[in-house]
């Protein structure tokens, strides 16, 4: 049997087999599954269902605490209330606040004035219902005091809520977990870690010699290793994203059906881009994770926020640009976005540039001296 030179697909298949068979090893499986479940578990713990949210809601204020201030007011005016009256009034307040909470939703893109007017109308309707029901329990003097108190409380609440542009509502933590934590931190770091280690881990394990003595050019070897790792990451992170969305569905987060295709599309572009960055950093330094954090601070958080064309260098900004197509996200996050096609082009080109540079480096540099010196 005479071996020929392996084709690109031969090499890719070989490295893909090595990649997934290593990753899917029984010893690693529990850790992998466990790490996939950590973030969904955190979301479940911190995002409340509508029912629990209604029970604990305090968006419009805590009715019990507010009523306590009303009782003190009556005591100052020497107008006592019976226990049955207090219980009846408390029940009315709780019911109507829960109803107001359940029927309120933020409208993305709404102007502050329009939002304030909506809040005013919403709370006026709630106040009217409370006053009508309260007549059943209160005498004339109590009712007069209650009307005055309720009107003032309502005005205070409208003023308070109007000042908050994007209130931290029930669904907001989910989006912050999904984007600010998972999509903008965990996903990039996972990609950089996995691809920065493409050669470094082989060096550390002293197994690089088995690969670089095969009849495959060093550049091609690095590229197929990158592609195999990206394929693996795409699958792994797809599962993680779907788990997070499943958690969102369980917590009845609205608008997920519209967000899912967009997020998966952006993720499909983002994973190769972050992975390519990791591949290049891994070729440049053995401390690629520390370098990635510095890169993140300088380029993504620094240069990427400068309102000139230089912010095109930020991958995060391009990702935000694409995600801002979603109305819900646009209403929650304040992003300085650019053009859609520029963003797509940048995310598509980034892997070619980063991996190209990494392949050139790997073709020139040995990455073997330290291992050799340890012998």
């Amino acid at each position, binding site marked *: *049997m*005479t*071996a*020929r*030179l*392996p084709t690109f697909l*031969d*090499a890719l*298949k*070989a*490295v893909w*087999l*090595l990649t997934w*068979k*290593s990753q899917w*090893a029984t*010893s*690693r499986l529990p850790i992998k599954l466990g790490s996939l479940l950590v973030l969904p578990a955190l979301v479940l713990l911190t995002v409340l269902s509508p029912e629990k949210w209604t029970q604990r809601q305090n968006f419009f204020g805590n009715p019990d605490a507010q009523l306590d201030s009303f009782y003190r007011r009556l005591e100052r005016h020497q107008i006592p209330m019976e226990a049955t009256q207090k219980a009846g009034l408390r029940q009315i307040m709780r019911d109507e606040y829960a109803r107001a909470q359940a029927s309120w939703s933020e409208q993305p893109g709404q102007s502050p004035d329009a939002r304030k007017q909506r809040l005013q109308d919403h709370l006026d309707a709630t106040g009217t219902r409370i006053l009508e029901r309260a007549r059943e329990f209160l005498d004339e003097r109590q009712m007069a005091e209650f009307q005055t108190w309720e009107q003032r409380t309502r005005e205070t609440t409208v003023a308070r809520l109007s000042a908050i542009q994007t209130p931290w509502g029930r669904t907001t933590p989910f989006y912050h977990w999904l984007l600010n934590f998972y999509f903008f931190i965990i996903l990039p770091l996972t990609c950089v870690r996995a691809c920065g280690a493409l050669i470094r881990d082989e060096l550390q*394990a*002293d*197994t*690089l*010699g*088995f*690969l*670089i*003595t*095969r*009849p*495959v*050019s*060093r550049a091609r070897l690095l590229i197929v290793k990158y592609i195999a790792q990206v394929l693996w990451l795409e699958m792994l992170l797809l599962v993680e994203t779907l788990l997070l969305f499943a958690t969102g569905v369980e917590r009845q987060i609205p608008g997920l059906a519209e967000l899912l295709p967009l997020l998966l599309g952006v993720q499909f572009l983002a994973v190769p881009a972050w992975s390519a960055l990791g591949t290049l950093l891994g070729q440049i330094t053995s401390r690629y994770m520390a370098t990635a954090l510095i890169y993140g601070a300088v380029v993504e958080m620094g240069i990427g926020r400068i309102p000139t064309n230089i912010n095109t260098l930020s991958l995060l900004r391009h990702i935000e640009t694409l995600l801002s197509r979603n109305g819900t996200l646009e209403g929650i996050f304040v992003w300085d976005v650019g053009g859609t096609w520029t963003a797509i082009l940048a995310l598509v080109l980034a892997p070619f540039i980063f991996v190209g540079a990494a392949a050139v480096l790997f*073709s020139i540099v*040995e990455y*073997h*001296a330290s291992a*050799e*010196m340890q*012998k």
Partner: protein
Amino acid sequence: MSAVIRAEELSRWYGIVMGLNNVSFEIEPGLTGVVGPNGAGKSTLLQIITGQLQPSSGELTVFGLRPWNNPALLRRLGYCPEGEAMPKELRPLDWLRSLALLSGIPDGDAAARGEAVLDRVKLPREHWDKRMGQYSKGMKQRVKLAQGLLHEPELLVLDEPMNGLDPMGRQEIAQTLKELASRGVSILISSHILAELEALCKNILVLNWGRILASGSQKEIRADIKDWSEELEIECDSPERLARRLFDADVLLGFDLEPAAGLLRIRVKDAAVFYEQWTSLLLQSGTTIHGIRSRSRSLQNIYEKVTM
């Protein structure tokens, strides 16, 4: 016969540390041993030959080609590194199938090829389904050798392949290597134990401190060092008398006496001069010889001399 490997003024250093120091040599087809103590530069040399390292200066060619980043040449080479490092979570056939694909063996043949080489290195089939992390040192050595044989290379480079093998295992691997050599495969094998190579290799390269101290066939190496001090252990009836006669003839560098055991150990100045005069000096001394053993004629002795 053209050289398989040719090095001219080859040097390799790591910062200020010298790995190989301006060495020139040629390695002919067949079984060749590279011997030297740890740190002699063996692994550096083998890694330059297999394209893992680049020379700092000078040139090394294998089949007339430079090895670094040269797939056309690497297709003709097989390499078995030192150490036990292997992907421990993989089973050997999975690993070998991947490496076979990476070596250019078609997918349809890769799995069968993996089985064939495992059979060739005599890894018992009952261990094939285990993950390599569970393997003993000897089993790992066999799988490492197997991966080097996957694509039937013309030159097989083995870095300390006998490490960790029991005597039976060593014999089996040596037999496998001899079979390969008989089929025309050139084999370069390194070891810090000369005895392993002495019985196996026709040619030897002796390295220490990055320099080649001796090279060629075992016979040539012995001839190269004919000027070195020869050591003989002579069993006779009167060691004192023989020592006095040899000392008077000024052919000795030194001697040790063990009269009770009837032993005389001598270190001769010039082996050629000594053997020319030996018979007459022996007759003149009137000593009866019961036995003579040369302590310098085994490669191990030569190796110890040049590497100590």
